[in-house]
């Protein structure tokens, strides 16, 4: 497996990789940004600890506001704060923010041009035991359809910090998609993070896997498996979902012919949707979307639930084999 040296990754096969949740990266970054920028305020709807805003609260208690279990209020109060010059970071479970307050986000934050940063935690099947109500699988679709919204989906703790920092530096509404579960930290401080740019992590020619968030690491492991069978799979991390990297997607399509998208999200409206829309216009290619096939999840340990729905390395590798096999037959 050829790791792209420009990405400065740790060895993904090393057993010594540390683990942390991307929500922890979000929380750590918001606390640090709070040190640098006195205009930054944070709000939560009774889940401040769960979205790791306790770091911010400890450092800046006077700049944190708990709205109670009231996500609609969370969004609109944040908009008001932004109109008056503050930069609010709001954090909650994604199923409820942006799940419940989508219209407030649309009207008061996006249409209202408010500089509000939305952290949505507990996304995807990774949530595990809490079950389908809390496994947010539609947030990318909800956020990606809003004019002006920057949608970021980091793949590990360090990238979550960088994504949060980038959201702060980008004027206007932003959504940062985070996980509950701990994910291996395989990027480094040196790994680039540029809004709107895909990170090509693994070079490959036979097929390109484009993943986002918590499916990036299992996609790398899948590529390692496939390599043993002589299949050269590229792995790309598309962390920006609102502004697809058209150039890189076209390059991957032309080089590999087929693209497999992998996401811990419904296959409609999320990463797969973004890639299909982009390639259909820029460089038509075969795209196979992998993710939740328009179903709700279920309870169980996150890793087991993800395995059941094929979002573990084996499931991703199987899908790639299937895809290549199908095309070989036709060829």
């Amino acid at each position, binding site marked *: 497996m050829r790791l792209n040296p420009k990405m400065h990754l740790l060895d993904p096969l090393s057993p010594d990789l540390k683990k942390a949740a991307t929500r922890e990266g979000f929380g750590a970054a918001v606390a640090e940004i709070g040190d640098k920028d006195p205009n930054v*305020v944070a709000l939560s709807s009774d889940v401040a600890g769960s979205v790791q805003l306790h770091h911010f609260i400890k450092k800046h208690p006077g700049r944190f506001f708990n709205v109670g279990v009231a996500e609609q209020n969370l969004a609109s109060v944040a908009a*008001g704060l932004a*109109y008056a010059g503050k930069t609010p970071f709001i954090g909650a479970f994604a199923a409820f923010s942006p799940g419940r307050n989508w219209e407030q986000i649309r009207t*008061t934050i996006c*249409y*209202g041009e408010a500089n509000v940063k939305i952290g949505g935690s507990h996304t995807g099947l990774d949530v595990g035991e809490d079950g389908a109500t809390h496994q947010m699988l539609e947030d990318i679709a909800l956020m990606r359809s809003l004019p002006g919204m920057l949608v970021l989906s980091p793949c590990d703790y360090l990238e979550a910090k960088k994504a949060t920092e980038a959201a702060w530096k980008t004027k206007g509404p932003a959504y940062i998609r985070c996980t509950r579960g701990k994910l291996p930290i395989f990027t480094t401080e040196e790994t680039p993070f540029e809004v709107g740019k895909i990170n090509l992590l693994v070079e490959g020619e036979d097929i390109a896997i484009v993943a986002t968030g918590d499916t990036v690491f299992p996609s790398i492991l899948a590529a390692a498996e496939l390599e043993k069978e002589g299949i050269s799979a590229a792995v790309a991390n598309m962390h920006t979902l609102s502004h697809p990297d058209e150039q890189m997607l076209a390059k991957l399509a032309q080089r590999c012919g087929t693209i497999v998208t992998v996401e811990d999200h419904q296959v409609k409206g999320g990463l797969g949707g973004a890639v299909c829309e982009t390639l259909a216009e820029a460089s038509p290619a075969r795209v196979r979307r992998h993710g939740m096939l328009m179903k709700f999840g279920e309870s169980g340990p996150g890793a087991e639930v993800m395995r059941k729905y094929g979002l573990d390395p084996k499931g991703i590798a199987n899908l790639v084999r299937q895809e290549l096999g199908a095309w070989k037959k036709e060829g």
Partner: protein
Amino acid sequence: MKLSSQKELSLMANTIRQDIIRMLVPAASGHTAGPLGLADIFSVLYFHEMSYDPKNPHWPDRDRLVLSNGHCAPVLYASMARAGYFPIEETLTLRKLGSRFQGHPSRHWMPEVENSSGPLGEGLAIACGIALAGKMDGKRWRVYCVTSDGEHQEGSTWEAAMFAAKYKLDNLVAICDRNYIQIDGNTEDIMPLGDLAEKYRAFGWHAISIDGHDIGAIISAFEQARGTKGKPTMIIAYTTPGKGVAEFERKYEWHGVAPNKEQAQKALAQLSEERKRIEEAKE
């Protein structure tokens, strides 16, 4: 521009009502009853109560007006035009393609307004955010939030009501246009709202009930609000929807339609008569 006498403020309210009728005719759609009912309150807000500078709309120390029931945009546009923000003739472009006078107020099209609105039940929360920022920064400006009674059926309004009390936002005063109508009928038939003042008191607010057409009562309610410390104030203003035009008054059917030319002529004639009565009345 400050108007000192109640008579002048009543005349301004009458002017605003005529402006509302005039801008709704070419628009050929929009809301008539609510804006007419709010004219006295807006006259007091823009010509007596609030500090602002139309030449410098983003003056940092201005008072902020958050219109929550965005469909009442015509009363906001007329008041702001009369206050010097825009030429009154331009309000005749209401709802036309390319006009900054959007069907519902928009910060994007009209940066002079504090918030974009239309979807109900959001303004009070926005006002809370603005008021909280003012408190954090130790500012003396105040936030005025105009709401409708109908939008108190939105749960989000009550989320904001709790928030304002928790954070002791005494720099926030909300006005509820208690006109008892909504699109489908009378509020107490569609979804009874009951005693809103008592509800707000139970939520930790100071609440005042007034006749929303009594200029003196409106002025003193705002004074009382300014003097109330440690909690936000809600003014329940009992108003007559369609106020000033007999054919429109108290008819929910006039919530969301605009008068045609003929109806407008009759309405303007009535409002001109009313103007004469105000002018002739003793101070």
